[in-house]
Structures are given as structure tokens and as C-alpha cells.
């Protein structure tokens, strides 16, 4: 469904140091840097797959997604999505894909989402019968209810994102690019959207390429991940393999009812923060339940939270931990 070979996108950006004199100099003589946003990556994705596209900020994830959606022209390399060259922006291609940008919205700010849905119906030439059926499905799956009749600007971030997804899916795209779809949402809303994406993939067989900074998104949705850093592909394979190797511990966050010295915590795990009434420790995944029980019994714990290792930390370890490109764990 998606084929990418030796994809390259470089940007020329102006550079200037701060200060009045530097501004004046830059006015007469501009200096430029070349940013290698994407630098020769390649992968292929089969129909119906959900793939997590991971990497630190500035790794080139969004640039790649935008090239796959036909928004950006590649400098070199070849791309094929559903048999089309995305940058040609053929009508059939644009009717086959959808892209949801977590930090940009297609909902019309001043009107209810229902108006955006109707506009998209006209844009993609969806028949009345198909429209009714899809809206019915999306309303049920996303729990849209009366949200669609309220002005978009009056909706909460989570409610807007539900409507964004519905608007993007009115035409039944076969390929879905999701760029940080859960960013900024509360935990419950993240879960709602995750369930929806998994369900949509199951029902329609759509191919989904997803970027996210939340480990829970990737864990819940993606068997396979592609990791890039500074424009280069550094891993393409089973997500469980990364987790097995790199997410070896969990973060335990504690609030105490009375101050606890750091020395008293060191027997439970690696202490990353301790300031009397609050502390954070990293505990091996296999023993986290038992360690938490011990802490609750032995320490004046007022509150405890156990969290996955942040995705950036896993990838950071991964990049210094000896994984090899394209082949998975070394």
C-alpha cells in the first residue's frame, strides 16, 4: 500500500545570531543552513497495517507524513501510496487518503462540525446513502451525539479531535495518516481515540501510519514501528522487540504524608528525584508490583502512580543501545 525508497527532503533555512548588529548584517548578507529533515529513508507498509512512526522532535516524522500525503515534494527518492505518486495530487489519490494533524484543524472554527461534514461530503462526492451510513457509524463509534451541532470553537480539545477524526473519515479513506492525534488530550479521551482507531482499522481494513509521543498510543495500536532520527531510519520492526530490550523499567511516582529521606528510598529502585514529600524512582518492570506493595507497606505513601517509561527515553536508550537499521535488535 505504501512504498518508500531513498526518500530525501532537505530545507534551506536562514540562520542569524541574536542582537542588533547581527540583524543588520543579516539584512545585507543572509546566511543559510541546510536541514536534512529526511535523508534517504525507505520502507514499505502492507494494506491494513497500523504502523507507529517514532522519533524524537525534529526527527523528520511529520515531513515524511506530509510527503506521503502529497503536501510536500521530495527532493529525491520515490514514493507510492495506493499506487499513486502523492506529489501529483491526483483527485483519485486525494480521495483515497486522509490526514489528521493533531495541532492543525480542518473543522470550520465558527460553524458546527456538521457543516464541515457536509462540506467534506461535497468535496469528496459522497452519496447521500453512504454519508448517512458513515455518519451513523462514526457517531456511534466516537460518541459524537450533540457535539456536531455545537460551534467548533465551543468544543473542548478532546471533543474537537473526535470531530476532526470523523470529518477526515467521511469519504472512507483507505490510507490514514495520523500526526499526534492524541496530543494534549486527557487520559480518558486518549483511550477513546485509541479504541476508535483500532476499531476503525478492524472494520475497514484501512492502512494507518501514526506518529505519537505517547507510549500508550503505540503500545495499544502498533505491532510494528519505524524509528527515525535526524532524517535517517534507524529501526523498522516489531515494537515488542524494542520494549523488551529498552523499556526495562517503569517510573513510580510517590507523594508522602511525611518527609522521607532519599537514602531510605534507594533500596526500592533507582531514585531520579526526591525532595522529602515527593519522589520518583525507576523500578525493573518484572518486580514493579511487588516493589509497589513493599513501598505502600513500609513508607508513609499518600499517593502512588506507576507509569511507562516515556517514549523519548526508550528511543534515547535505543539509539545508544546497539539496534541496527532495518533489521531490528542486533
Amino acid at each position, binding site marked *: 500500500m505504501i512504498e518508500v525508497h531513498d526518500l530525501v527532503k532537505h530545507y534551506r533555512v536562514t540562520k542569524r545570531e541574536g542582537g542588533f548588529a547581527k540583524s543588520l548584517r543579516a539584512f545585507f548578507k543572509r546566511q543559510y543552513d541546510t536541514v536534512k529533515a529526511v535523508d534517504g529513508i525507505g520502507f514499505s507498509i502492507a494494506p491494513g497495517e497500523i504502523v507507529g512512526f517514532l522519533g524524537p522532535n525534529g526527527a523528520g516524522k*511529520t515531513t515524511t507524513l506530509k510527503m506521503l500525503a502529497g*503536501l*510536500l515534494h521530495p527532493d529525491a527518492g520515490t514514493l507510492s501510496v495506493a499506487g499513486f505518486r502523492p506529489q501529483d495530487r491526483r483527485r483519485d489519490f486525494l480521495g483515497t487518503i486522509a490526514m489528521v494533524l493533531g*495541532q*492543525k484543524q480542518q473543522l470550520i472554527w465558527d460553524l458546527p462540525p456538521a*457543516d464541515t461534514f457536509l462540506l467534506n461530503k*461535497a468535496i469528496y*462526492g459522497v452519496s447521500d446513502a453512504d454519508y448517512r451510513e458513515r455518519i451513523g457509524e462514526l457517531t456511534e463509534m466516537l460518541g459524537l451525539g450533540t457535539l456536531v451541532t455545537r460551534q467548533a470553537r465551543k468544543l473542548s480539545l478532546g471533543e474537537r479531535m473526535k470531530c476532526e477524526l470523523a470529518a477526515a473519515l467521511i469519504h472512507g479513506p483507505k490510507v490514514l495518516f495520523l500526526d499526534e492525534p492524541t496530543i494534549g488530550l486527557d487520559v480518558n479521551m486518549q483511550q477513546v481515540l485509541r479504541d476508535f482507531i483500532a476499531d476503525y482499522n478492524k472494520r475497514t481494513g484501512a492502512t494507518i501510519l501514526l506518529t505519537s509521543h505517547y507510549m500508550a498510543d503505540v503500545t495499544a495500536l502498533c505491532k510494528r514501528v519505524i524509528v527515525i532520527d535526524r532524517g535517517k531510519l534507524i529501526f523498522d520492526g516489531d515494537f515488542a522487540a524494542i520494549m523488551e530490550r529498552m523499556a526495562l523499567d517503569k517510573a513510580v511516582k510517590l507523594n508522602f504524608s511525611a518527609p522521607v529521606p532519599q537514602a531510605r528510598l534507594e533500596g526500592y529502585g533507582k531514585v531520579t528525584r526526591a525532595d522529602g514529600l515527593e519522589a520518583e524512582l525507576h523500578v525493573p518492570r518484572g518486580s514493579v508490583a511487588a516493589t509497589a506493595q513493599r513501598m505502600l507497606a513500609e513508607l508513609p505513601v499518600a499517593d502512588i502512580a506507576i507509569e511507562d517509561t516515556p517514549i523519548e527515553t526508550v528511543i534515547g536508550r535505543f539509539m545508544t543501545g546497539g539496534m541496527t537499521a532495518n533489521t531490528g535488535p542486533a
Partner: protein
Amino acid sequence: MNATIAPWLRFSRAYFRTCFAIMLEYRATVYLWIFAGVTPLIMMFVWRHLAAAEPVGGHDPKSFSFYFLLAFFSTQCCTVWVVWNVDHLIRSGTYAIQLLRPFDPWLAEVVENLAAYALRVPLNLTIVGTGLLLTGAWDLIEPARLPVYLLALVLAWQLMFNMNYAISLLCLWSERVKSADVWVYTMLYTLGGALFPLDLLSPGLRAAIAWLPFPWMVNFPVQLLAGDAPPFPGLAMQAAWLAIVVVAHRILWRIGRKRFGAVGG
């Protein structure tokens, strides 16, 4: 219906309804924009006063009233905000949303402009009609010229719109072109004839600026309606300039899209 045209019409109808609904939400702003463009009406009072004792350049107060009321209508028809729109869309990163639609973003801008006219033109016509009645300039209209005057107005709008659209596409290179918009409107008001009738200029200067697009957008339609200018070569000049700016924005679109950096991550 032709299979190529049908999707364009379907989108245009739906987008027009959407844009009109948005304009209704912001109707106060739309009407304020009309009153921000009353310079020709102010100039009408200035020139009427100057011509009170004796005609200036062959214009008496009634003739100046006719000229500036119609010049006001021309400038209103030529008021487009496509440069601001595209500049904003590109700088905010939301141009990507337009590009994901299976239509040229040009069409969306045209339809949005038309939706604004649907709200503005009735008020414009009320102002101009009332002005013509109050000043007695109504009878200077050549009724037989109305159809060709409307054609000239549509061409003037399209010329201004497409010129601005071509300028807006420079955003794909510089990411900020709003100042060019100011330049275009300065030229429209001065060289177009919204501040003074162009026949007050010397013949040499008039001949020189006749090669520019601006006189054909304001001065020409007014003179056409008054029967003071023949339809040709004015309509031909409008069509020629329109062809030039359309070709320009097609070339800019083709080259610029490859350079588009999709601002905002």
C-alpha cells in the same frame, strides 16, 4: 453534466454556503470593511466643492458625484483579501488542509470572495443608488451600456482577484507578502482613478498609465457606463491583463508548490 466540471460545481456550491454562513457570523466586520473603503466618497465631496463655482476639467458637481459613486462601487468590487488569506494560511500551517482537498486552492479563494460579495453588494448598491438619487446623477447612466458595464465589472474583479492571487503565491517563497497587498491597493486608488478622474491627467501621463492594469479596473467601467468610453479597447485590455495574471499564477503555483515547506512541523 461534464464529469470534470461536476465536482467543481458541487464543491463550489457547498463551499459558497459554508463561506456565506461564516460571513454571516462576521457580518459586522464585513460591513466595517465596506466603510473602510469610502475614500472615493470622500473624494466626491472634495471635488464637488472644488467644482461648485465652475467646472473642473469639464466636470461639474453632478458629474463628479456620478464618477465617484461608481468609482466607489468599482473599488468595492475590486476589494479582495486573498493575499491576507493565503499569507495567513501558509504562515499558520493550515494551507496543508487546503492542499489535502482534491481541488486547486484557487477555487476555494474565488468562492470565498463570491460569498463575501453576496453580503456586501446589496449594501454597496443601496449606498450608490441612494447617492445617485440624492445628487441627481442618476440620469447620467447610459441604460444601453448596463450589460457591457457589468461585464467590465466582472473582468475588473477577476483581474484584481487573480493579480492578488499571483502575489499571494509568492508566500511559497518568502512566507510573508502582506505588504505587496498595500502596494496594489495604493496603485488601484491612485492610478485606477479612485482619487481623481483620470481624464484630469495630462494626455501623456494618461497614455502611459493606460498600459497598466489599474485604470481598467476603476476608471474604465465608470466611463463605460457614462458613455464616455467605448467598450473597446478597454475590454480587450482587461482580458489581456487577466490572461497575463492567470498565466503568472499558474506558473507560480507549479513551481512554488515544489518549494512549499508546510510551515509548522
